[in-house]
């Protein structure tokens, strides 16, 4: 089973889903994210689904659950990059993604989260990221 990588960027955890998600992979991502939020004291979770060709009720529920669990662990979640056809299908399917904040792209999502992208986990602020580095980090 494939696993979805979780990248840490200051106070932010960045997840970019690039594979057709098996249900077990989605469940593993939920668990991994909860672990990482606590382990890194992340304040924000950004989930990029721009590569996802469909979001069905299972994946939709995963997104809602991640947002709820993150909320309880004191982190905000934003889902970014949903394709227009996916949005239309989700609404017709009857899924509202309640409690999940969305943004059109990674940049807007990061702005929405107002996290400190330069914070290191031990607060030493040694890692200073230039703004130009951000898009590259999202692609990795």
């Amino acid at each position, binding site marked *: 089973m494939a696993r979805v990588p979780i990248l840490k960027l200051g106070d932010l955890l960045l997840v970019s889903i690039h594979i057709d998600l098996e249900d077990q992979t989605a469940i593993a991502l939920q668990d991994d994210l909860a672990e990482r939020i606590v382990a890194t004291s992340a304040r924000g979770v950004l989930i990029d689904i721009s590569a996802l060709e*469909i979001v069905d009720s299972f994946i939709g529920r995963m997104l809602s659950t991640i947002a709820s669990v993150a909320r309880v662990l004191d982190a905000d979640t934003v889902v970014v990059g949903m394709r227009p*056809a996916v949005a239309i299908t989700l609404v017709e*399917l*009857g899924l509202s993604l309640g409690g999940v904040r969305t943004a059109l792209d990674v940049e807007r999502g990061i702005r929405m989260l107002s996290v400190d992208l330069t914070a290191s986990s031990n607060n030493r602020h040694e890692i200073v990221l230039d703004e130009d580095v951000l898009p590259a980090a999202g692609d990795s």
Partner: protein
Amino acid sequence: MTSAGVAETSSIDIAVDQDVVRVRQAMRTFAVNAALSLVDQTKVVTAASELARNTLIYGGGGSAVLELINNGTRRGVRVTFSDSGPGMSDPDLALTDGYTTGGGLGLGLSGARRLVDEFQLDSAPGSGTRVTITKWGR
């Protein structure tokens, strides 16, 4: 549907998680070959994903038979999900939004019906479940 021609078929066994992904991918290929719009492709693939998962979880596994069809003026895709699981005592109730006997949202069956042009559900206790969906090109 007697006049409908079937141009191509494919059968996929649904026994493990990964098979749901295989159904989605095969469905996408068929939808592209039927020249469905991107939105209609997305709708029918999503519907197929819901039904394939139902076949696996509630039916205990089964199969999906995909068909590329033609009614003389339009092309379309049809897929039939069959299982020999416990079946449903009340198929109408199963089609109600929010109704579930599992741990899901209860949107799979009802939502899938909204996403396609034709939807047929045959199920009875002890005789399994058979769901056929059709999506036509515009």
